[in-house]
């Protein structure tokens, strides 16, 4: 089933981490396996924020392979070496969990080259690489993940998130949403639905050199959009194209450094409730999620089939 949610404040920064936590926690019944956040903060002096993992969460319920934690440190050292040899400078290094890290780096080169270098280290996956995006995902509900990664006070303009019920791939971090639109900084995607032409599209994109880290069909949307953006197509136009190119039933949210968008398939088979005011836009699979941040009576509506909308922060 899965639940998705997003919020964007127009022209102001708020506690978007706390807001997303409340929204996603209220959607736990739609997906209890894992929770993910793509939060857009105030940045780190124009440096890149790199979120990556060097292993999986192997707690009860995970389908990941158990590893000795000692390998994580070896991998991190290799990542540090790759960053250095790529010409990037590491300014800040934080270990969040035994397998998950947050770095602040400065880098002037091609992000694709840097990303390839880092991900050449075994079991290492970049979750996000951007100037305002911080992508966090792990096993557990929204509160568990927010507490683990200290997201309750995260300040920013907008965010999207996902509660996942694993149906077609494992219960692990790599199959959790959101997905970063590798290798474009600050682009992330969450999705509720099922894509039925996943493999055809995946093979075509892989032939173009695009990279997939999981077998989750939702990752296809992020990679699809990344490919379009790479070819100079504007985000909104790429989203409109996805409605024809992607088969199946889906509603997805996409966020960039200063925008949040939504797209709904031609049959409107997956839910999305939308609230818009002069100050903010909030959307979620169920209105009950929006009401956690806007408890008063509000006017909401369901976007129609084939609708694409994009809002500016």
């Amino acid at each position: 089933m899965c639940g998705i949610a997003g919020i964007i404040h127009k022209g102001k920064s708020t506690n978007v981490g706390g807001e997303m936590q409340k929204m996603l926690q209220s959607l736990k019944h739609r997906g209890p396996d894992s929770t993910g956040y793509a939060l857009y903060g105030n940045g780190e002096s124009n440096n890149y924020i790199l979120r990556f993992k060097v292993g999986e969460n192997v707690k009860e319920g995970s389908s990941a392979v158990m590893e000795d934690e000692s390998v994580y440190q070896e991998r991190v050292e290799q990542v540090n070496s790759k960053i250095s040899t790529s010409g990037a400078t590491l300014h800040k290094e934080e270990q969040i969990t035994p397998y998950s890290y947050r770095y602040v780096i400065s880098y002037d080169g091609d992000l694709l080259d840097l990303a390839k270098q880092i991900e050449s280290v075994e079991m290492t996956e970049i979750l996000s690489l951007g100037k305002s995006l911080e992508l966090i995902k792990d096993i557990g509900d929204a509160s568990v993940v927010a507490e683990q990664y200290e997201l309750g006070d995260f300040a920013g303009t907008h965010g999207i998130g996902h509660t996942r019920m694993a149906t077609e791939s494992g219960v692990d971090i790599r199959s959790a949403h959101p997905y970063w639109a590798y290798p474009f900084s600050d682009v992330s995607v969450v999705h509720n639905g099922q894509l039925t032409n996943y493999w055809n599209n995946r093979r075509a994109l892989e032939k173009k050199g695009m990279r997939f880290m999981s077998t989750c069909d939702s990752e296809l949307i992020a990679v699809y959009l990344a490919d379009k953006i790479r070819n100079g197509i504007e985000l909104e136009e790429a989203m409109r194209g996805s409605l024809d190119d992607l088969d199946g039933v889906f509603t997805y949210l996409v966020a960039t450094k200063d925008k949040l968008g939504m797209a709904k398939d031609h049959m409107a088979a997956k839910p999305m409730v939308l609230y818009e005011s002069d100050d903010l836009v909030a959307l979620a699979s169920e209105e009950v999620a929006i009401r956690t941040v806007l408890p008063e009576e509000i006017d909401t509506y369901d976007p129609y089939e084939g609708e694409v909308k994009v809002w500016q922060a």
Partner: protein
Amino acid sequence: MASIKKHKSTEMGLHDEVLTGRTQQVFFNPEETENFFYHDAHKVDFNKRTEIDANNLECIDINRKINELMAKGYGTIVIKNPGSKHSIGVGILNKLNLIIEGSLGYFGIGSVDGPVVRISGRVGWSCAENMMAGKVVVEKNAGSCFGAAIRGGDLICKGSVGARSGIDMKGGTIIVGGDAGAFTGFMMQRGRIVILGDVGPNLGDSLYDGTIFVGGSIKSLGADAVEAELTDLDIAWLKRKIKVSEIDKKIDYKKITKIVSGKKLWNYDNLEPTERKGAI
């Protein structure tokens, strides 16, 4: 906007369908009514009024409270602060004035038989699913699958509704003051749908029977849905129903489009209700 093909509906006999179903046809002999009763159906007094503050209650607690109050004879119940919670007001099997001050989540007012429900806010997916009789009025918008599989009663949304309104509908009336999404009336079997605004693609896809009236534009018709002639009887019925629905909108009744089944996909036996009765 795709243009709709004109069909000679009169010759085809498509405009004279007979509405049946629980609200239109008596299936049970009055002498047998004593053998036909619902558990948890209560005799209530509409003059006995009370309130429930749903703010800190789960949906199961709200529904339990409604049932307890009906058992005590309360006939008018006001629910405050519903907070868009799911499945509120389901399974009410007797007459009741239920007033919801706010919005409901998914599956609100499902499987009811008899209450009159007024919702001041919005409703989520599948409002009044499986309703058998009664009246539900939604003041604002509604999500998808509005009135899914209803068998009778009047379901009114003064705003706009999502996709698949009236899906698998088996009787009753749905009236929408605003627009409706894709697949409205999908696999509809009986009853009537009135959309006063515009309608999305695949209207009436695979409908077996029943009638859909549209006041605005139609993006496209679904498989086996055809336009039929709007009769004076239709207009008289529409005027009466829309008046009862309290929708304050200026309507040019002659411009309403009537959609029925082309019956090319039809595999439905008119005698089936009679046969079913015999089997009981």
